């Protein structure tokens, strides 16, 4: 389907398409920077690519045009994907597409921050992940990974001029008794910081708010407080060594990250996991999704004052964690998947234990639904709060439960099935209004669906090997390592040099707990990734947060933030 799209593009733009490429199902076209807005506008309007999934920067120091900027586009409606590449020389500007896709705003800032590619016409081209006193561009190949730079003070997000402009729009403060002039002095506006250490942010995020009375007249957000350089670390490690780092992206659902990362690399190598491995991945991924939703919903409810639910839901989560700890030795950071398989098989009795625990989940979910579903306070705090339309959600790059809350039943498990998801019987819960209430309810309903998927997967988990039979990716059994020279060498090569992933590029993705989780991998044929870009679902969602809360009040901002489920580890990577 995507191939035909490329052909249509070639007919439409002729020589302006400089090159086309296809690798493992990913189609891409190359265009000059000047033609980028035109091609993307065509793709959006005529070809239905309603979403810009990600913008990826790559540094090739040896090339004349040193950088390559890739735009990953997706059409949910027409079920196709395409990548548009733009080669640029150092300091050569790329025209911004933030007018076409709202999500481009932050994606472009990230490429600017980490690679130093300027985007002409961008409304707010500042650093985003590194701090404001940082010099240089961290993901350039010539930036040493260990070169830290100190930050002495946080950045002010509002200048005096911004506050003065906002004061002109303020209306709540003008009726003050004894205030003769019909305008608000800038110093009357209250500046409030939420975060970077605040209980309601559930992680290190920052929102600076300007308050006109109790109304948020303007908000700005800042991220990067927990930028742990996943992408730079990946380039510094072998493909297999990246696995523990993926745990710490979305640490509420580490198994999902593990499994999707392993799948992405397998796609690039050109191997497919065994049926049993796929079944195990489905089970642990859906359990992770349940845990992630549990944390999100119960923390969200605590934020709006419903503390009891926290105890109900957290106990279920603890109970599932016990099994996960038994399975892989760790509660949060599981490191369970491997490229080409899993670290080991499930333990005996796993299935019965999980079936029992999912019964507890049922009870927890039912109890919580009884407490909140028709609760007047809950409905007042969430209905119509932070609502977003379908078109806006797509343009902002929403995926996952937040997108489905607007009524669009887009789920990668259905749209682009992997691990045999097409063979499971489950539904995609959707909302209607795209507000906080719907986001919570979609998550509650998804837990029930995930529970059903786990039950089905446990019932028909195929027997057979977990790991693929391929000495290029799977470590030899210990008996062979200790018993033969070939075994020792094989182990040694795989550990020290890493898995030799054939040169090429690939975008592997899956439905994470928060939405589309993707890994864009570039291999140069050595044991280390040349470039690894994560497409974190939180990143585009959080970019819309400032606009969503403007005009509301602080308690609304808190309720909205909880329902978006922003996980800082994944947001900042």
């Amino acid at each position, binding site marked *: 389907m995507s191939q035909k799209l490329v052909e249509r593009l070639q007919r439409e733009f002729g020589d302006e398409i400089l090159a086309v490429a296809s690798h493992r199902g990913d189609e891409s076209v190359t265009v000059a920077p000047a033609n980028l807005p035109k091609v993307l506008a065509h793709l959006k309007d005529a070809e239905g690519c309603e979403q810009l999934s990600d913008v990826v920067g790559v540094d090739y120091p040896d090339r004349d045009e040193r950088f390559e900027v890739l735009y990953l586009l997706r059409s949910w409606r027409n079920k196709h994907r395409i990548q548009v590449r733009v080669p640029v020389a150092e300091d050569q500007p790329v025209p911004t597409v933030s007018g076409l896709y709202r999500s481009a705003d932050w994606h472009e800032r990230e490429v600017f921050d980490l690679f130093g590619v300027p985007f002409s016409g961008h409304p707010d081209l500042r650093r985003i992940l590194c701090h404001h006193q940082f010099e240089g561009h961290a993901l350039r190949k010539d930036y040493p990974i260990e070169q830290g730079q100190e930050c002495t003070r946080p950045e002010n997000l509002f200048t005096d001029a911004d506050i003065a402009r906002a004061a002109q729009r303020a209306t709540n403060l003008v009726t003050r008794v004894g205030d003769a002039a019909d305008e608000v002095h800038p110093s009357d506006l209250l500046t409030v910081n939420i975060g970077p250490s605040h209980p309601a942010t559930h992680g290190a995020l920052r929102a600076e708010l300007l308050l006109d009375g109790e109304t948020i007249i303007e908000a700005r957000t800042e991220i990067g*407080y927990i930028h*742990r350089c996943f992408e730079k670390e990946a380039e510094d490690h072998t493909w297999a060594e990246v696995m523990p780092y993926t745990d710490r992206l979305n640490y509420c659902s580490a198994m999902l990250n593990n499994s999707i990362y392993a799948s992405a690399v397998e796609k690039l190598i050109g191997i497919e996991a065994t049926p049993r491995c796929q079944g195990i991945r489905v089970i642990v991924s859906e359990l992770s999704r349940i845990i992630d939703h549990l944390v999100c919903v119960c923390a969200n409810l605590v934020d709006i004052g419903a503390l009891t639910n926290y105890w109900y839901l957290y106990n279920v989560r603890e109970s599932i964690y016990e099994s996960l700890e038994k399975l892989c030795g760790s509660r949060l950071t599981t490191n369970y998947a491997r490229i080409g398989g899993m670290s080991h098989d499930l333990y005996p009795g796993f299935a019965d234990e999980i079936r029992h625990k999912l019964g507890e989940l049922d009870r927890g979910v039912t109890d919580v639904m009884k407490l909140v579903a028709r609760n007047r306070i809950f409905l007042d705090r969430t209905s119509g709060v932070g609502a977003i339309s379908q078109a806006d959600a797509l343009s902002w790059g929403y995926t996952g439960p937040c997108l489905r809350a607007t009524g669009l039943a887009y789920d990668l498990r259905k749209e682009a099935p992997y691990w045999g998801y097409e063979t499971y019987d489950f539904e995609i819960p959707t909302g209607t209004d795209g507000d906080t209430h719907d986001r919570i309810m979609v998550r509650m309903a998804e837990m029930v669906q995930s529970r059903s998927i786990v039950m089905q997967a446990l019932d028909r988990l195929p027997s057979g090997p977990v790991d693929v039979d391929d000495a290029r990716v799977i470590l030899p059994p210990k008996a062979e390592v200790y018993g033969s020279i070939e075994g020792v060498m094989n182990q040694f090569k795989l550990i020290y040099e890493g898995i030799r992933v054939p040169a090429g590029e690939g975008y592997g993705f899956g439905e994470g707990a928060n939405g589309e989780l993707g890994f864009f991998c570039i291999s140069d044929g050595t044991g280390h990734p040349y470039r690894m870009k994560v497409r974190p679902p939180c990143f585009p969602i959080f970019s819309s947060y400032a606009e969503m809360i403007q005009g509301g009040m602080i308690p609304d901002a808190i309720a909205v933030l909880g329902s978006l489920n922003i996980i800082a580890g994944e947001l900042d990577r």
Partner: protein
Amino acid sequence: MAVDLESPSNYITTRLRQAVNWGRKYSLWPLPFGVACCAIEFMSTVSSYNDISRFGAELVRFSPRQSDLLIIAGTISYKQAPILKTIYEQMAEPKWVIAMGVCASSGGFYNNYSTLQGADRVIPVDMYVAGCPPTPENLLYSLTLIQERVEKEGLVPSSVRHAGRVQS
């Protein structure tokens, strides 16, 4: 300490220092500086299964002015460092600091351009908890060790206790 529960006017005699420390020990108010994965395990520690209130430390305060135990739960980046320092300085004496997990203790396996190689580069730390993230049991154990310290040296200001402990 002398206790007389037999006579009608039952009384306890003790030293002021001991009585105050005893009170402090069982009423630590933690401030979870939760930034990453460890914060999720802190949530587990607070929840009903592990129940931090068994140790009298369930009153989680997010205002540094109301808390006396800073739990650094997560990776501290260079961007975060000045904020951590401000929060520590805003806490009233006496105060204690737990670096929860390897990131807060030493940077962990994030040896890179953005990660501070241990929170003790900017503020003094009393207790380092191993683990990535540490289990709730591990964190509770470190809490009991802090309690032992509180009992012994609760009246010593942390500036004296920490003299020469900050690395830079």
